[in-house]
């Protein structure tokens, strides 16, 4: 019996998503695994419940927008796109092969990815423009932007934050992946941001800080923000762990750069198997 793919409801199980990330990283012998692992639960909740794609079309004009400003986490988004069916197993297994389209950072020419990011601080402003455009059109479309805490070093982020508050873009929601690490070390050692919550509050945002790996709390935070009548743009500060899900990768910044050996891959897959796929 042939089962229509329309009937398969994607589950976005975090262990499954992480396994896809590992498969891609191993197939492509590529990096940024830790950056992808820290946003898995955030993307899972967004794709499972909040992002609306009419007719399952990633290019639908009426879609919500997920802007991955921290393009380094793109493998987590690829993993979700595979769950939906926008990517196939062959895309995963051929990652980084010559002539393929999925890159190591978000690229807007891939259906389902909204921006070309990786040069940090860009996606936030593009998201502000999308949110403003939706307001001007009288549309209910939502804009979610995911930024890294290291990315907050970029001044453009704060230009966008000021403007979003000025324009009362309450349809704009930024989610900060606060994993405490950036390329060269701890964010607190490089540019100490202090309380990110207070920073966004002082820029005129409604802000909540949560455990960014607890899907129930993520769901509640988004849901509560969508119920409020406040006109302020929204910020969720998601406390996360870089490399979350595999013990030897957690909080170890080598997994920003390291490539998987066969032994690493097997060990990591083994850990995920214990997390009820």
């Amino acid at each position, binding site marked *: 019996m042939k089962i229509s793919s329309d009937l398969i409801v994607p589950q976005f199980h975090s262990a499954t998503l992480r396994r896809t990330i590992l498969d891609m990283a191993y197939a492509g012998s590529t990096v940024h695994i830790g950056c992808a692992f820290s946003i898995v639960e955030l993307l899972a909740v967004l794709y499972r419940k909040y992002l609306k794609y009419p007719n399952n079309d990633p290019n639908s*004009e009426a879609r919500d*927008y997920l802007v991955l400003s921290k393009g380094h986490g793109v493998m987590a988004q690829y993993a979700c796109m595979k769950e939906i069916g926008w990517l196939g197993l062959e895309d995963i297994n051929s990652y980084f092969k010559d002539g393929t389209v999925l890159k190591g950072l978000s690229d*807007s*020419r891939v259906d389902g990815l*909204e*921006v*070309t*990011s990786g*040069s940090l*601080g*860009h*996606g*936030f*402003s*593009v*998201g*502000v*423009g*999308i*949110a*403003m*455009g*939706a307001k*001007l*059109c009288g*549309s209910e479309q939502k804009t979610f932007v995911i930024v890294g805490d290291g990315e907050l070093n970029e*001044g*453009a982020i704060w*230009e*966008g934050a*000021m*403007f979003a508050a*000025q324009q009362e873009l309450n349809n704009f929601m930024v989610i900060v992946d606060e994993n405490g690490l950036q390329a060269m070390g701890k964010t607190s050692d490089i540019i100490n941001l202090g309380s990110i919550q207070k920073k966004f509050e002082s820029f005129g945002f409604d802000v909540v800080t949560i455990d960014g790996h607890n899907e129930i709390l993520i769901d509640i935070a988004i849901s509560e923000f969508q119920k409020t009548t406040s006109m302020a743009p929204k910020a969720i500060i998601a406390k996360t762990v870089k490399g979350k899900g595999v013990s030897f990768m957690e909080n170890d910044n080598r997994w920003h750069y390291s490539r998987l050996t066969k032994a690493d891959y097997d060990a990591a897959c083994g850990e995920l198997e214990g997390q009820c796929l």
Partner: protein
Amino acid sequence: MRATFSSVLTQLAVSDPKVLLLTGDHGYALFDEFRKACPSQYINAGIAEQNMVGMAAGLAKLGFKPFVYGLSAFVPVRVVEQIKIDIAHDGLPVTLIGDGAGFVYSHLGTSHQSTEDIACTRSVPNLVVMSPADRFELEACMMLAYRSGCSTYLRMGKADLGDVHSESISEEAVKSPISITKSKISVEEGNRNNRDSSVVIFASGSMVKTAIILANERYPDARVYSLAILKPLDEESVRSLCLGSKAIIVMEEHSIIGGISSAILEACSAIGCPPLLRIGVTDRFSQFCGSYDYLLQEHGLSTDLVGKKIDNFLDEVGRL
């Protein structure tokens, strides 16, 4: 020219609600007409150009057609990366207006002077680069940018030099080197010191006026062409004009590195090129404070100094 800019933009916005004007807190009084006619389509993004350009990309993704206004030193130079990644990469219908290009803000110094903008933008794929010389070219360029839906950088330099054409120019004509009609060049007999019609002068923006003045006074038989669209350059026409000439002069209020003369030489690189004199800014910042005319002189771009360079050049070519 700026009045034309304001009125054309206002007309576009009135007829198409998807046209937006974003300004980085610049354009005092320039946009009074626009703000009165289309207040909801006017967005002052504040002194935050990076966000303004990224935001324009987001608005364009939702179907809007933003015109992003700034001083040329800031838009595009300060935000080249946003233009590259957020706009041109996706070919979004955003028109970037860089006002005051060249030495317009002469007294304010290097931060407000802009002689690198063409070089910066020409190398960005998918980006059209325009440099109109008068209100007729400006209107054609603006309409072309709007109708084409292409990502575009439109450079506006010294805007009060008067017209170089006597009538409107079509959007099609502006894509190629625009011949300055003989009727516009009032030849004064007896004032000619060069009768060689095989000299071609290419100029753009403010320097078209200088080219016309010099052609009037010294080189009445030279053929003068304005280049309003620098990218995509009509290379075939440029090559044809170059091959049919004995000497070429290129004039621009921009660095000679990466500007119009570079584009012409690139176009001719495979076939060779007659002797070509590059008149522009020679890899240096302004040193002194002064008027626009004073700074042109400092950089060797005043009419007199350009004339001397051309005389010397043509003498050398004549001796070849």
